[in-house]
């Protein structure tokens, strides 16, 4: 278990107040809540993109909250996916490996594995700017995993896909998370994401956790 404590932040018209929250060491912890409940703020604070003085986040004996964003060693996929459009799918993935200084041979082997699992052979050499929504989404997940993160953080990663693709994507992502054994935090408002992906569910409303912790 990783334990988040004292996550409190006042945005003026909105307050986040989480005293204690456990995130699974294995499988997928889902943070579910309606729009405006504070999910994305929690997500950004955990990434270190927003300050939260006093917060403690203990993971395998390390307080991640004291580290800078890059040093937290997290993998991330935002709602907007944010691939580098001028790079190919493969270059996007290798970018993450280089960022974390993963050994080149190891990175190649890992990429091959991910390409197989997420069925990306057909578009690996295409620039990200011309990929379809589903393809982009798979590249974004692979890119996040390539850097061998401690934890994978996903913010509404399926929301940009149409209904049919979404279902397929959930299964693929669930599959790769299980295969790679990376603890994952999924932030979503979609009940179907919860049903397919969750090993643990935490609900957030008005900046407070209301169940499941």
């Amino acid at each position: 278990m990783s334990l988040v404590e004292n996550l409190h932040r006042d945005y003026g018209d909105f307050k986040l107040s989480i005293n204690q929250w456990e995130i699974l060491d294995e499988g997928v912890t889902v943070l579910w809540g309606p729009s405006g409940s504070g999910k994305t703020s929690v997500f950004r604070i955990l990434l270190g993109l927003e300050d939260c003085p006093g917060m403690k986040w203990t993971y395998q004996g390390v307080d991640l909250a004291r580290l800078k964003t890059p040093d937290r060693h997290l993998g991330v996929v935002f709602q907007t996916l944010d691939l580098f459009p001028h790079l190919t799918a493969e270059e996007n993935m290798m970018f993450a490996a280089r960022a974390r200084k993963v050994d080149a041979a190891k990175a190649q082997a890992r990429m091959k594995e991910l390409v197989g699992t997420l069925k990306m052979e057909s578009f690996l050499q295409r620039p990200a700017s011309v990929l379809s929504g589903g393809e982009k989404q798979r590249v974004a997940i692979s890119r996040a995993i390539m850097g061998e993160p401690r934890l994978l953080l996903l913010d509404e990663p399926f929301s940009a896909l149409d209904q049919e693709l979404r279902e397929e994507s959930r299964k693929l992502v669930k599959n790769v998370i299980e295969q790679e054994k990376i603890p994952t935090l999924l932030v979503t408002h979609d009940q179907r994401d919860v049903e397919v992906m969750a090993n643990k569910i935490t609900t957030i409303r008005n900046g407070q956790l209301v169940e499941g912790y």
Partner: protein
Amino acid sequence: MLRIGLVLFLIFPFLFLLTQFQVTSWPDMGELIWAFKNSFLQATLSAVFSLVLGFWVALGLLALNSPRTRRLRFVLEVLCLLPNFLPPIFILLSALSVIDPFPMGIAGIVIVHSLMNFGLAAVLLASTIETKLGGIIELAYVEGSSRWRFLRQGLLPMLKKDLWLLGLFIFVICFGSFAVPLIVGGGRGTTVEVLIYEKIRLSSQWGDAVLLAFLQSVFIFSLSFIASRGKGSLHHRPANLRLLGSYSGLMVIGVLSFVYLFGYAQGFVSGLAMISTFYELQSALVWNFLGSIVLGLSVGVLCYGGLMWIAYCWPKKWFERFLNGYVAPSTSLACFCLLILGPNEGLYPFLKIPLALTVLSLNSLFRMGWDSELHALQNQMTVAYSMGASPNQIFREVLFPQLSRRAGLLAGIASIWACGDFAVSRILAHHDLSIAMMTETLMSGYRLNQAIVLSSLIVVAGFICFVICVGGSRVLSRKFAP
């Protein structure tokens, strides 16, 4: 460290101002008030005329909002923006050629400034009306409102803030303008900017000049601060604007474009008849043409580097705030602080002029779309940063390949401005180094038609520099692609 370095580079003239601020005696108050009054008056009148003409022209542009007329509208918008985009020397030459006798003084400055800024005001206003009020205009049209009633009771009250901010923006540009008052201000229209120039160049009263520059900078900064605060929300939806569109606005574009295009063409034809007078200048022409190219390219390269420097330092809240609030120093101030630093002979002007032009242009280039380019890439930077990428890797693999072409385009624009510059060069060089300086010399000697013919070489030099900057940036982006 790099951020601090860039900030220091941009505020160098202001720092210089602080270190040199030794006012031994209060300057002649009568002269000071007179220059401020002239600056204020010309800037106010320029802003008012530009807004009135701009508003009228905007109604003309709005008459062309159907898909059929889109191309024509684009051409007219280019005609409108051309005087604002070209170096001031072209508009000066056109106006002086077509308005004869030209009213030197405040009136002359206002005419040239209005000619330069009406198009910018028109294009911005048309876009604001379209995107902000399109729905309301449609509603008023459907409900049968008359044009006059809607203008008076609907449009103008709703646009009040935008008009005010746009007017303030033009006022600030005109208040700090140097090249135009220097040429057409005459003895009666001396502005603060020109007075600073005269204090140093003619009477070596540095203390007075520094005090004037300080007062002017504070005044411009305060106004720019107000002008940068208000930004309305925009809604993008194509709307039917028949209620407002007026073809009379197109006539205004026609008349004003005629003034600057016909004036230039007429002077050019007359000047060609005197082409033989250039034979004695052949050698100077060749060297000064090369001088223009060297200055244009140096500014292009420095601006390209400066823009990339900004990109490397992005994003940081305080840095962004600084760039948004920063006001480029007065032309005279930036030039004179370089003038007293080191020698001014030999090749030194070729170092100092590009440096001064870069300090003066970088902020305009930043606001001409560089800031929005950087904002558009911010999410990619955040992802890369979260993944642990170093600033070097983010710059090399994410930013540079995506920004190089845009930086090249903006650097190319700056190089065209540099080719057309005579004001900065006149302060920092003791003799003509470029075609623009030669043109200004001819213009000052009332050899207007020859000056116009000569200025066509500025277009050639500007075009060459622009192409090299744009092409070079493409080569670099390909060469350093990951």
